[in-house]
């Protein structure tokens, strides 16, 4: 069956009234639950999975993919409005999204998030449809050294997340890397930095650190400011609450960058949307004519990571549907769902169940359209949240944060850790340490350590394995160039200043 015939058949299935309804319900519930902090896409999909088990497999996977999309988009809403990242991939959105909200541009930020989700989601589906099998085979060539190089590339993005001081950004990143070592060492079964707490054996959950440093840190910072009367501004009029033509023009490259990076990183099992969002943000800042605007409310700083986050959905489905390999927590749940529906994920899935595959692809197109139709009209409504006075807004954020963190594992230690990281987040703001590198280190640290140790086990301790394979060497070269670039610029500026003084 060729692509066009398959797609036509898929649309005839997805456009059936009942399947259309399931897609709408999936997107709607996914968005609503995904908005809540602590409930990222995997938790949302797991929570809503039982709703689909009584359906036929095609209708079930159509609804599940709607939930997946909706949950991904939902996470960006609280990041932009409240600086509360619901999942790790939304952390980067906080940087410029919340800055836009502070500048009175919450509406355009939410609108751009919806539009970039739509565009990238569509690009992701097109790529899933066209290049799924060869890409999946390529992804399988990624061994531990390539993963190490990919993580090094991800960590090199710290350069682009640094504010005025690179050393402070690096310190923040190393703190995150240290947090990633907390818990049981999977290679030896020994515990590290658990301080006798059984709850810490599984490590520190990302949600705890992100909500602490971003949301609680922000609330504490604002308690000092709010008492002196400052507040958010939300402009009146629908035109001011949606992105304008200039915003869309500014985001042209970001849409493309995020879509491609998101898809290709998404294909790699274990890499996930977090690294995709950080890398796309880094690329966007690196190629921007005004990199200094990033972090202060640059609309491209919202578009790129949001696009990457959504395009990753299409990428993550590639190894799942073509090889039966789940690349993330969410796709692992989807794999379980496929098996429960009696399907056998693997190389023969598309051949044996063309109706399901093409129905899914077509429903993802439709899901993207529904996501946009559903969310754009809600943007002005969501933006009104910022009109709430500080004495309503900030206790509310504290309540949502406590619930979000507690709901992850139902342990009070997580809430205490959240408070601790909140105080840390406040101190970091005062001392001008960026918080995003801490999250970057935490998310990538574990993966990086595993990749290094597996690589060195493979080579009996020969470190050359980390840089001798072509793919790994290329990525490491990129990482080195990103890290060394600012140093060269600094040296060059010193040289120019010295030359000016001499003249």
């Amino acid at each position, binding site marked *: 069956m060729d692509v066009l015939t398959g797609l036509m058949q898929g649309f005839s299935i997805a456009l059936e009234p009942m399947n259309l309804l399931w897609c709408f319900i999936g997107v709607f519930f996914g968005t609503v639950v995904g908005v*809540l902090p602590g409930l990222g896409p995997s938790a949302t999909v797991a929570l809503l999975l039982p709703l689909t088990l009584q359906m036929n497999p095609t209708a079930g996977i159509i609804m599940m993919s709607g939930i997946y999309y909706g949950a991904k988009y939902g996470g960006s809403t609280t990041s932009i409005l409240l600086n509360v990242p619901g999942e790790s991939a939304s952390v980067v959105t906080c940087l410029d999204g919340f800055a836009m909200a502070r500048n009175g541009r919450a509406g355009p930020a939410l609108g751009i998030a919806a539009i970039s989700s739509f565009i990238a989601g569509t690009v992701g589906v097109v790529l899933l449809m066209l290049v799924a099998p060869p890409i999946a085979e390529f992804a399988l060539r990624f061994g531990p050294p390539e993963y190490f190089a990919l993580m090094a590339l991800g960590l090199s993005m710290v350069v682009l997340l640094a504010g005025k001081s690179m050393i402070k950004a690096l310190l923040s990143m*190393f703190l995150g*890397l*240290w947090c990633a070592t907390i818990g049981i060492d999977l290679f030896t079964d020994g515990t590290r930095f658990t301080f006798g707490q059984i709850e810490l054996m599984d490590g520190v959950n990302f949600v705890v650190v992100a909500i602490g440093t971003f949301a609680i840190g922000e609330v*504490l910072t604002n308690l*000092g400011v709010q008492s002196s009367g400052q507040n958010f501004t939300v402009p009146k009029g629908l035109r001011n609450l949606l992105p304008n033509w200039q915003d869309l023009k500014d985001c042209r490259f970001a849409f493309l960058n995020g879509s491609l990076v998101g898809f290709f990183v998404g294909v790699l099992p274990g890499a996930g949307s977090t690294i995709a969002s950080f890398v796309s943000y880094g690329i966007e800042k690196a190629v921007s004519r005004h990199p200094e605007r990033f972090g202060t409310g640059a609309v491209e700083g919202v578009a790129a990571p949001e696009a990457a986050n959504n395009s990753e959905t299409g990428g993550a489905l590639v190894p799942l549907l073509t090889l039966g390999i789940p690349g993330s927590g969410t796709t692992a749940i989807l794999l379980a769902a496929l098996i429960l529906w009696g399907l056998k994920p693997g190389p023969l899935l598309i051949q044996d169940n063309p109706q399901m595959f093409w129905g899914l692809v077509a429903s993802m197109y439709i899901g993207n359209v529904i996501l946009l139709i559903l969310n754009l009209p809600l943007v002005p409504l969501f933006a009104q949240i910022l009109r709430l006075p500080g004495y309503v807004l900030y206790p509310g954020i504290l309540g949502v944060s406590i619930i979000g963190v*507690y709901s992850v594992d139902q342990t009070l230690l997580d809430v205490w850790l959240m*408070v601790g990281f*909140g105080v840390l987040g406040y101190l970091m703001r005062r001392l001008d340490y960026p918080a995003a590198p801490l999250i970057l280190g935490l998310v990538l640290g574990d993966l990086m350590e595993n990749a290094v140790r597996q690589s060195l086990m493979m080579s009996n301790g020969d470190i050359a394995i980390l840089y001798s394979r072509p793919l790994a060497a290329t990525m490491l070269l990129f990482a080195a160039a990103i890290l060394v670039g600012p140093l060269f610029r600094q040296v060059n500026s010193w040289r120019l200043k010295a030359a000016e003084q001499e003249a």
Partner: protein
Amino acid sequence: MGGWKSLDKSELAGALLLMAFGAFVTVEAWNWPYLTKDGPGPGFFPLWIGIAMAGLSGALVVLQLADIKRGRPVHRTSWKGAGPVLAGCLALIVAVALLKPAGFLASYVLLTIFLVRAVFRQSWTAALTVSLASAAGFWILFVKLLRVQLPVGPWGF
């Protein structure tokens, strides 16, 4: 030595704290095997993290001293508005301590009343309205609709 005196005290304290923390991580990691027969051991990664943190903190102080010496602008920490922040922080700590004995809703209501009254200096009516309305909203949304399990007090909510 004049450079030391002109360093921002908070910056210096932050860097020294991080340096001490880096040293702690290094010492802890030193107690774990650096290499095993299968490759790097559990001490491998943390050891380098600790060394990097201690080294970078030292470099931060040195570079700031160099900046001061060259007359370049350096970050000056502002603690303006720290009073309400400290009050809010302590209130949050008390509220979290009360989660187990009193449950989420009661501790959240008390936290909100304190913040609205003491930090934002609003009326009792505002404090009671905001705390009770938001607590009711959380209960309906999370407990009733989404069935999220929250700490429960002796009164059953």
